[in-house]
């Protein structure tokens, strides 16, 4: 008989036991050089390098080789800071060390983290990591301002997936769990993210010390948006059921102000409201008698959840587009995260409508002849959708802002996240710099589109990247998916390049115009 439940659920927090040990080299921390910017932990695809801030006493029993430093920023002054790698989970992708900006002024080759052979440090670092995991975790509510840096002081609830070494998608998923993980529902389209997200029998999704963590499901490829919408409708229904049918009957047992507070907070997914609501519900559970046990059992339905519809461009631009369009045309509070690798990565790199002109992909072996589709601009025309185009390596704080704004937006939101992929054909370790260059060429403009801004007489569209200042060729010459053509057919390559240049110029003009579109100030 199967040990797994008949409904298809299986336990989370299991990837931690796999310990693949595939890295030849792992990062080693030089705490004296570290500026504690947390960029390394932000970009790590596997949550294999982490940062924490703790009080000095928490470190009293630290292993001999455990490193920590005085916390440098104002927000947790007086605490200690520690950065630790899990040598058995690290894949050795080099993203962290390459992205680290801090170097020894006397010897620039020595950075705040440097790769070193794993074998000699395996035992000591494993011991350090075990100790690190037991150190206290911060609660989100303790952080005054969650930005790219401080988000990394939070426990990731997505760890050690089977994604490629250097994968560009997973850092977004990890971030999502750091921001909303303990109340997160994910509807995941088939693709890389469904495979690394749920390769039975293990899953990289985890739980915090309260036992809370993301709930996750993969239905099909074409139905993911509708699947996620269904989750939102179910959440609404359960909440309304608890509010209407059940809460209404508690007047004799609960103070009116508590009931009022519960009713209000049930609709508020902000950190403050969720934290308060959990406290409200504890009070409620303590006060309610046995006759109201049904409400006690369903109390969690009254905590506002964060539901996300996640998938790649193969799903969002192509196969699942009809459903996505339907969901975004509505008014339900759903959040869509498209991790755009510009192709069907999971199945070997077939072209999608997101694949840019001139890129080689399966079914486009001479380089794609049609333009790359602009999903963001398309969906702006609905008028009611919050839209953001992000690229973590190019603008880290904008990424966090966009995810937070999308979540808070009381309607459909769409975040399109550029995700470097091995199908692009460049050294994945250079992912961060690569994305910066990408944005500087204008090939991936960064922006946020918030329809509510027009109420204040401002344009809904806000550009988060500047006018293109580098030539397209600087970027495409680094990617084998483009340069393959150069070798085979140099004229075709030049023609593709010209078309890309025109597309970039045209898109920039269009965005400038859209940025001017605002109603008259009243």
């Amino acid at each position, binding site marked *: 008989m199967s040990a797994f439940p008949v409904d298809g659920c299986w336990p989370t927090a299991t990837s931690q036991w796999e310990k693949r040990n595939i890295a030849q080299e792992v990062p080693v921390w030089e705490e004296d050089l570290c500026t504690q910017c947390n960029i390394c932990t932000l970009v790590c695809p596997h949550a294999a390098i982490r940062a924490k801030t703790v009080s000095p006493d928490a470190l009293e029993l630290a292993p001999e080789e455990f490193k920590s430093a005085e916390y440098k920023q104002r927000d947790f002054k007086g605490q200690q800071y520690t950065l630790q790698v899990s040598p058995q989970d690290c894949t050795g992708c080099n993203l962290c060390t390459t992205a680290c900006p801090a170097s020894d002024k006397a010897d620039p080759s020595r950075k705040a983290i440097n790769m070193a052979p794993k074998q000699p440090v395996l035992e000591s670092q494993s011991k350090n990591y075990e100790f690190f995991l037991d150190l206290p975790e911060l609660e989100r509510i303790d952080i005054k301002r969650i930005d*790219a840096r401080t988000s990394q002081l939070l426990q990731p609830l997505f760890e050690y997936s089977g994604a490629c070494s250097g994968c560009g998608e997973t850092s977004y998923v990890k971030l999502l769990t750091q921001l909303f993980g303990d109340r997160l529902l994910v509807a995941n389209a088939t693709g890389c993210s469904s495979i690394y997200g749920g390769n039975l029998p293990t899953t990289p999704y985890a739980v915090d010390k309260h036992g809370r963590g993301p709930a996750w499901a993969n239905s099909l490829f074409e139905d993911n948006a509708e699947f996620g919408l269904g989750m939102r409708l179910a959440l609404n229904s359960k909440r309304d059921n608890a509010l209407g049918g059940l809460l209404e009957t508690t007047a004799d047992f609960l103070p009116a102000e508590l009931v009022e507070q519960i009713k209000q907070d049930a609709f508020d997914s902000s950190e403050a409201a969720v934290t308060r609501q959990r406290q409200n519900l504890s009070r409620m559970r303590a006060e309610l008698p046995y006759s109201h046990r049904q409400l006690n059992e369903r109390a969690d339905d009254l905590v506002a959840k964060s539901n996300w519809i996640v998938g790649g461009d193969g799903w969002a631009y192509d196969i699942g587009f009809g459903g996505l369009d339907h969901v975004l045309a509505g008014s339900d509070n759903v959040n869509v995260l498209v991790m755009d690798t510009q192709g069907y990565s999971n199945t070997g790199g077939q072209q999608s409508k997101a694949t840019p002109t001139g890129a080689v992909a399966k079914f486009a072996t001479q380089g794609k002849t049609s333009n790359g589709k602009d999903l963001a601009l398309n969906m702006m025309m609905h008028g009611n959708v919050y839209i953001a185009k992000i690229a973590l390596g190019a603008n880290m704080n904008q990424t966090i802002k966009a995810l937070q704004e999308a979540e808070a937006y009381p309607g459909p939101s769409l975040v399109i996240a550029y995700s470097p992929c091995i199908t692009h054909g460049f050294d994945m370790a250079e992912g961060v710099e690569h994305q910066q260059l990408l944005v500087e060429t204008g090939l991936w403009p960064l922006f946020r589109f918030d329809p509510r801004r027009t109420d204040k007489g401002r344009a809904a569209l806000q550009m988060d990247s500047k006018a293109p200042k580098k030539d397209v060729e600087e970027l495409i010459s680094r990617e084998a998916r483009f340069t393959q053509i150069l070798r085979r057919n140099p004229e075709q390559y030049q023609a593709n390049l010209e078309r890309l240049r025109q597309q970039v110029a045209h898109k920039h003009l269009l965005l400038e115009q859209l940025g001017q579109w605002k109603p008259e100030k009243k």
Partner: protein
Amino acid sequence: MTNIGIFFASDTGNTEKVAEKIATRLELETNDIAGRSNEVFEDFDLLILGTPTANYGEMQPDWDCFVPELEDADLSGKKVALFGLGDQVDYPDSFQDAMGDLADLIVEAGGEIVGQWPTDGYEFNDSRAVRMINLSVWHLMKIVNLNSLTTVLRLGWLP
């Protein structure tokens, strides 16, 4: 008598320290911009604003949160001087970018930038804080922080 307001945002405390040095010289108080609204600028004729740059050329998050307030503000008639902290060695491609972005927002809000300073003696690849005036390259007034705090204050432009 010009009313001068000093505002800063700081993560490590370095920008705060520099703001305090300026404030001591001028016998004024400093103000942390975190969580404030644009009303705080109202009483002042001259603003001295300080900012570091985050990550690879991003605005410091407290100033970033203040952007909608700046978009709504009317700074016409106000003079604004900026000081920025940065590291041209580790971040040569984005040196003082955030100070440049802040300057752009100030100008859009109607403020007049004062106290510009030449880039001589600095070595970096790129900066959004650099403005070309005729044939010379000027740089917004700034104080550079390397490992130890080196403060260079020029107050000759004060009325």
